[in-house]
């Protein structure tokens, strides 16, 4: 005689320690096994796309800072690229290099948070998270030096960056670059080979490459599933075609692979920064532009490889000082499409780590 069980609904969030902000999941459970989940969004819907329609092109940059707030520089970059594409602005050489350095530092910072939060979700009681936060703090220091803020940098502008690097920046960056690989090795030693972590994450929440493409998943999650697709290589924006770096991929696409993928990507970012540091030219950092940009009528979609995936800005202009429509392609939201397929049949504890391994920011989901 089969045991008849009745599924029950567990409501996780919007305020829950592991939901990375205010995300809510209605999980239908059979015992501890997840049958289905319904993600509920909107607890941080701040109408950024609506606000962007009422602001000048320069005034939107502070808004983009607050999209994916742990990778503000990347958001700045994506937005500025979109405006430049729309208005046909040429960016000075030095500014391009500064942008690349900033974007890659930001990638390291954001991926550190992603990895730390994932390990925290696995239950490693804040230790890896705080170690990685300390490293992020070093990067934030550098950002603070150039932009004057610790989280919402508002550093890049259409046509360059707002200010040149201060003279004490390069020595500090060099020191950081010397330090970072050692720390990353230490973190690998801390948990990478840990038996419990492998038992928890290996083979859990597998996302096949085919499924990932069909769900429009991008970024580290896509590459962990074995698809070699990185916009920095496939569709080089800014000056990424000048650097020599690899696109690491993993085979199976489980949680452990996503974790490893992020660690590998940090190493590649360090490589890019090192090259950019060496090649950094001197010159102006900002193109001569009028106070208010007035791009011609048309539309443009510029995308970058943000730490979480493909971040794109789709701007429609009607030749006024504010965009007619500003759509943001949020990698976090679209990566979450695959969540339902990944968690079905796993336990509640796995739901948490699968969710953690996707690495979302609610600010970007809800906008």
């Amino acid at each position, binding site marked *: 005689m089969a045991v008849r069980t009745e599924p029950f609904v567990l409501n996780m969030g919007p305020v829950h320690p592991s939901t990375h902000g205010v995300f809510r999941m209605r999980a239908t459970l059979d015992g501890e096994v997840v049958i289905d989940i319904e993600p509920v969004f909107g607890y941080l819907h701040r109408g950024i796309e609506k606000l962007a329609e009422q602001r000048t092109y320069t005034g939107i940059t502070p808004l983009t800072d607050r999209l994916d707030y742990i990778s503000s520089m990347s958001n700045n970059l994506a937005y500025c690229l979109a405006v430049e594409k729309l208005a046909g602005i040429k960016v000075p050489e030095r500014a391009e290099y500064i942008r690349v350095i900033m974007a890659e530092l930001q990638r390291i910072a954001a991926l550190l948070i992603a990895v730390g939060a994932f390990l925290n979700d696995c239950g490693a009681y804040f230790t890896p998270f705080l170690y990685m936060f300390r490293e992020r703090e070093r990067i934030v220091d550098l950002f603070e030096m150039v932009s004057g803020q610790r989280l919402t940098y508002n550093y890049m502008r259409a046509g360059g960056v707002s200010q040149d690097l201060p003279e004490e920046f390069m020595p500090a960056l060099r020191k950081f670059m010397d330090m970072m690989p050692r720390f990353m090795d230490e973190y690998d030693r801390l948990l990478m080979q840990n038996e419990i972590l492998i038992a928890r994450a290996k083979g859990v929440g597998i996302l096949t490459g085919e499924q990932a493409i069909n769900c429009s998943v991008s970024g580290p999650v896509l590459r962990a599933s074995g698809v070699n697709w990185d916009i920095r290589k*496939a569709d080089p924006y800014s000056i990424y075609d000048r650097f020599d770096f690899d696109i690491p991929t993993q085979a199976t696409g489980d949680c452990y692979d996503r974790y490893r993928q992020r660690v590998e990507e940090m190493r590649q970012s360090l490589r890019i920064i090192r090259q950019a540091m060496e090649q950094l030219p001197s010159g102006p950092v900002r193109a001569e532009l009028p106070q208010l940009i007035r791009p011609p009528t048309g539309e443009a979609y510029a995308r970058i490889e943000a730490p979480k995936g493909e971040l794109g800005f789709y701007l429609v202009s009607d030749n006024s000082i504010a965009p007619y429509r500003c759509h943001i392609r949020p990698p976090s939201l679209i990566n979450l499409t695959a969540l339902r397929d990944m968690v079905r049949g796993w336990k509640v504890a796995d739901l948490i780590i699968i969710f953690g391994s996707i690495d979302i920011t609610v600010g970007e989901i809800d906008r």
Partner: protein
Amino acid sequence: MTIPLSGKDVASKIEEKFPGSVVESSQDNLVVKGNFLLDAARFLRDTEGLDLDFLNFVTAVDYYDHFEVVYWLSSLEHNHSLTIKARCYDRENPVLPSVVGLWQGADLQEREIFDLFGIKFEDHPNMKRIFLWEGFAGHPLRKDFI
């Protein structure tokens, strides 16, 4: 570099298969009729040489007299991209077919468009509000929303 496919070339191919489906086409994009959208999308995804299997994003633009839904497709294999658009002129009850059956990635984005623009996607399994709450009056990204 991702090569943007010429909208005109693709339009002629679609026109060949489904006569009368393309409204207009230019170098950058092509606009298909709403009732042909699903067929055209399937054609774009499954045709050899096009293989547009990756839906980058779906969004909508409100032009007062009509809504334009923009699909940005690309192919990871051939590394090319294409923008297709569909229009709906009904402001009170705009309806378009859902492409969730072809690209699952459209799932949450179509719900988002429904929420913020009020465009209903037929055959979408969970067509309900995603960001705002049930009972919210209006659709905020419409231009006439105060």
